[in-house]
Structure formats: structure tokens, C-alpha cells
């Protein structure tokens, strides 16, 4: 097996507070293999986004990645990169899809500009070449190149999310982080987008870090899954195991409280 695309070791992240610090991520370690679809699940506020942000070092104060943490991508520790290295590392190696499709595109720039600025920041590319490349990327996600002239508000939510994915693929990153990329979308659209990602990663070979609190969905798409609880990674296993034979009591409880659409319904326990 080749070296992992992403290897997180003893990651500790605090949110510094005036009186007390909030320890949001506690000693988390996990690996993502090349081409792997890795799911990170857990309830709201358990620290999933905090990890995702740390990988691209997108945090702003008062977040603080504690000394001793390691985030290794492509053999080097992301936490050691200086500003220039960091800039070229971002997006080229790790691209990211954010939670809200509505808001992850800059409302005052055209779609083309938003392709262009990332291409120009990382490559020597002319405006025409960039346009051609953008059109090509849009085709990957089934969007007509006409859309390049549009502003984000002129596209529907699902379309915007697919545009973001296309922008993510612009530099052929090794890892795509998706932080709840579909919560704002309908189930039908959500499924469509995830299937597309699945197809693309198989074709282009990138890995995916997929963050959601929808366990059912996660089991459907992920190869391996990590379950988080209050900043700690309590269980990591392959998807089938997590579903069929969860180890951690918390994981078990999650399954127990998930109503089923088909087959036998879970027991309505006495409400507590």
C-alpha cells in the first residue's frame, strides 16, 4: 500500500477563550489512503469542521493548533509551511467544498473570474487558456460553458455546488475535503452530486475527506469512516463494519436512534 495522502497525527486544536480555552479537537489521528473516500461523522459541534480547516490551515484566531500536532500531506508537515509554501500548497494539493452552496462563491465575481483567479494564482496561464480550462472543468460536472459569464446568484443551488466542485478539480488536487457539502440541498440533488464525486474520484484518483452528520448517507458512499464525539475520534473503521458491527457505544446509539425507511423500524424507546 502506498503512503497515505493525508496523515493526521495527534492533532490538538484549541479555541482560545478569555478565561478558558475550548479544547475542540483532542488528540485525533487518522490516515487517508490515495483514492480513498473517507467519511468523518459526528454531531454538531464535535470538531469536524475544525479538523477540515486545519488541513488547509484556514483557521483564524482564536483557533490554535497546539504544538506537537502533525498534518502530513505528500510527505511534509503542513504545519511547517511558510506563507508562500502554504499558498501554493492550498488548492493544488488539498481543495475544499464548503457547507453552503449558496455562499461559497463570491457574489460579485463571475464564475469565470473565480476559475481564473485560482488558476492564475498557481499557474502561468493566459486568460484564454484559463477560459478553456474552466469550460472543460464545467463539462466534467455537466454544466454548459455558457455559465462562465454568469454570476453565482444566477445559478441554482445544485448548480453552484457543482461549480464549486469543478473549481476544486482545477489543479488536480490529491485530496478533496467536503464539509457537509450537501446539507442545503434536496436529497435528490444531494445524491446526484455525491455520485458524481464518486465517479470523478474513481476516474481522477483523488481522495476525499467527507464530513457529514448523516450516517446513513456516509455508509452509502464512504470506504472508511471515523466517528467523532466531543473532539475525540472514538472509532475508525471501514464503512461496512461501522454499520454492521459498531464497536463504540456512541456509534451504536447513533444507529439506534436512526429511523429506517425500509424494513423493520427501530423501537420507539420511552422518550427520555
Amino acid at each position, binding site marked *: 500500500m502506498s503512503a497515505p495522502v493525508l496523515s493526521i497525527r495527534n492533532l490538538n486544536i484549541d479555541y482560545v477563550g478569555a478565561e478558558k480555552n475550548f479544547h475542540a479537537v483532542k488528540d485525533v489521528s487518522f490516515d487517508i489512503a490515495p483514492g480513498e473516500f473517507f467519511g468523518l461523522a459526528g454531531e454538531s459541534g464535535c470538531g469536524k469542521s475544525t479538523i477540515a480547516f486545519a488541513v488547509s490551515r484556514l483557521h483564524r484566531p482564536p483557533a490554535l*493548533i497546539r504544538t506537537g500536532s502533525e498534518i502530513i500531506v505528500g510527505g511534509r508537515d503542513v504545519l511547517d509551511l511558510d506563507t508562500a509554501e502554504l499558498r501554493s500548497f492550498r488548492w493544488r494539493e488539498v481543495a475544499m467544498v464548503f457547507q453552503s452552496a449558496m455562499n461559497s462563491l463570491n457574489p460579485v465575481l463571475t464564475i469565470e473570474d473565480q476559475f481564473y483567479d485560482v488558476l492564475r494564482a498557481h499557474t502561468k496561464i493566459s486568460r484564454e487558456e484559463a477560459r478553456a480550462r474552466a469550460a472543460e472543468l464545467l463539462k466534467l460536472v455537466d454544466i454548459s460553458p455558457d455559465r462562465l459569464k454568469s454570476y453565482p446568484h444566477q445559478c441554482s443551488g445544485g448548480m453552484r455546488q457543482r461549480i464549486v466542485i469543478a473549481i476544486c478539480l482545477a489543479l488536480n488536487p490529491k485530496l478533496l475535503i467536503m464539509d457537509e457539502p450537501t446539507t442545503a440541498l434536496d436529497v435528490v440533488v444531494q445524491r446526484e452530486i455525491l455520485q458524481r464525486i464518486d465517479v470523478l474520484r474513481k476516474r481522477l484518483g483523488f481522495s476525499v475527506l467527507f464530513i457529514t452528520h448523516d450516517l446513513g448517507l456516509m455508509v452509502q458512499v464512504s470506504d472508511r469512516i471515523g466517528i467523532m464525539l466531543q473532539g475525540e475520534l472514538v472509532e475508525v473503521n471501514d464503512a461496512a463494519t461501522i454499520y454492521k458491527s459498531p464497536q463504540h457505544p456512541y456509534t451504536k446509539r447513533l444507529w439506534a436512534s436512526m429511523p429506517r425507511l425500509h424494513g423493520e423500524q427501530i423501537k420507539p424507546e420511552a422518550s427520555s
Partner: protein
Amino acid sequence: MPLFKQLLSNKKALVGLTLLVLIILIAVFAPFLSEYSPTRRVGRPHQAPSWDHWLGTTRLGHDVFTRLIHGARVSLAVGFGAGLLITIVGTILGILAGYKGGWVDEVINFFTNMVLVVPNLPLLLVLAAFIGQASPLVIAIILGCTSWAWGVRVTRAETLSIRQRDYVKSAEMLGEPSWRIMVFEIFPNLFSIVGINFIGSVIFAVIAEATLGFLGLGDPNSVSWGIMLFNAQNASALSVGAWWDLLSPCFALALLGLSLALLNFAIDEVANPRLRTGGMLKKWTRMVLVGEGKL
């Protein structure tokens, strides 16, 4: 109310509040803080500051310090009176327009926008001049009548958003009468907007009083900072070198303005947690410096 508690732990608010309370106390106890009367000659014209006259005397031989602390009463009274009036009118109209909607909103909104585009101070000036001998009360009333529009605009905008909140919906569905919804469901949630509007209006009114006074449109019988500025200007205080006569009310105005502005900023920070910087950023910087972590 948690907002109050937060306000008291805000450094800006504390400094502002302390200053303001100090000014208010000085104004309230003015008669006990100076042996002189603000309207009697107690010295020669334009005496420089001395032990007898801490801030010197005016052209007429009045004690500047005495006039300053007595003037604080008028300036504060006009400021807070007009501020209150502006806020009350602005809040009531704003909530009405925002909550009632329909033609009520149309009418209020139209007038608000109208008043907003008429330049305020020039209008004030003209009104004060036409009415003549604008006593502090008159000034406060004119200010109240002409300056509510900004308050209406922000209150209305905020009300429009609060109206959509589910707790307002649920109060409606419980059959609460609409006045109760406006007073008990919406109004308490406008605390910061109303507070900012109030303090902003007080600043505005204090400044407007001083300005009208300075331009000679105030009542010379009254002792206020604006009238002090006017008298000093008339006595050519600057050209004859009696800087204390003119600069004393200037600094008093600046200090009062500063205390109120600090409060306003503090309310803004408390109401909008994103604006708060607080101590944690300093702590964070320290932690980074000692190598406890990085971004």
C-alpha cells in the same frame, strides 16, 4: 438581562460609563462644587486660569469652571431629553412600520425617507432661527421632531427581521394582541438597536445644541456649553488670547462625546459577538509567541 452583564464586563463600556457618570454627577452637584454663581460677575474680564478661577473667567467676568459645570446640566438635559424623544419616536414608528406593514409601513417609510434626505442641521438652524430665542427645551423639541428618521430606519429594518422569527409567529398563533407583540416580544429584542439609537441621538443632540448655541441661535439666558462657545466666540476669545474661554466647553463637549461613543461601541460589540475582540486575542497572541501552537 445577559446583555447588561456583558456590557459591564466590556472595557470600553466601563470607561465610557465611568466618564458619563462622572459628568452627570458633576452636573447634578454643580452648585456644591463651586462657590460662584454661573450668572454673576465674580472677576475681572478674561482672567487667565488661576487658583481662584480654575478655568479663568469669561469676557463678562463669569467663572468659566462654574459655567462649565452648570452648563453640563443644560447640555446633558438637552442631550438626554432630545435623545429620549428621538428614540421614543423612532422606536415606536420603527416597530409600527416594521410590524404592521401594509399602508402603515408605506406611510411611515415614505416620511422617514423624506426626512432622511432633508439635510438635518441646516433645517434645524432655519427652524431655530425662525422660532427665535430657542430655549434648551425648544431645542430639544425641535431636535426630537426632526431627527427621528434614522432611528425609524434601523428599528424598522431590525423589526422586519424579528417579525419573521418563530417566537413572534408563535405569539401571534397564541392570539397575543398585536400591541403586546410589539411591546413584549419585539421591543425587548431591540435592546441594542434602541440603545445605540438612543446614545447616538444623545451625541447628536448635545452636538446640535452646542452648534445652535455657537451660531447664536440659543437663549443667552441659559447657561449651556453652546452658549459658552457663542459668548467666547463673540468676545473674540481666540484673537485676544483667552483660549480658556473657548477651549473649556470644547473639551467638555469632546469628553462627553467620547464617553457616549465608547458606550455605543461597547453596545455594538456586545450585541454583535463577531465584533468583540476581547482579551482572548491577546491571550492567543501570547500563546503563539511562546510556541504553544500556531494556526
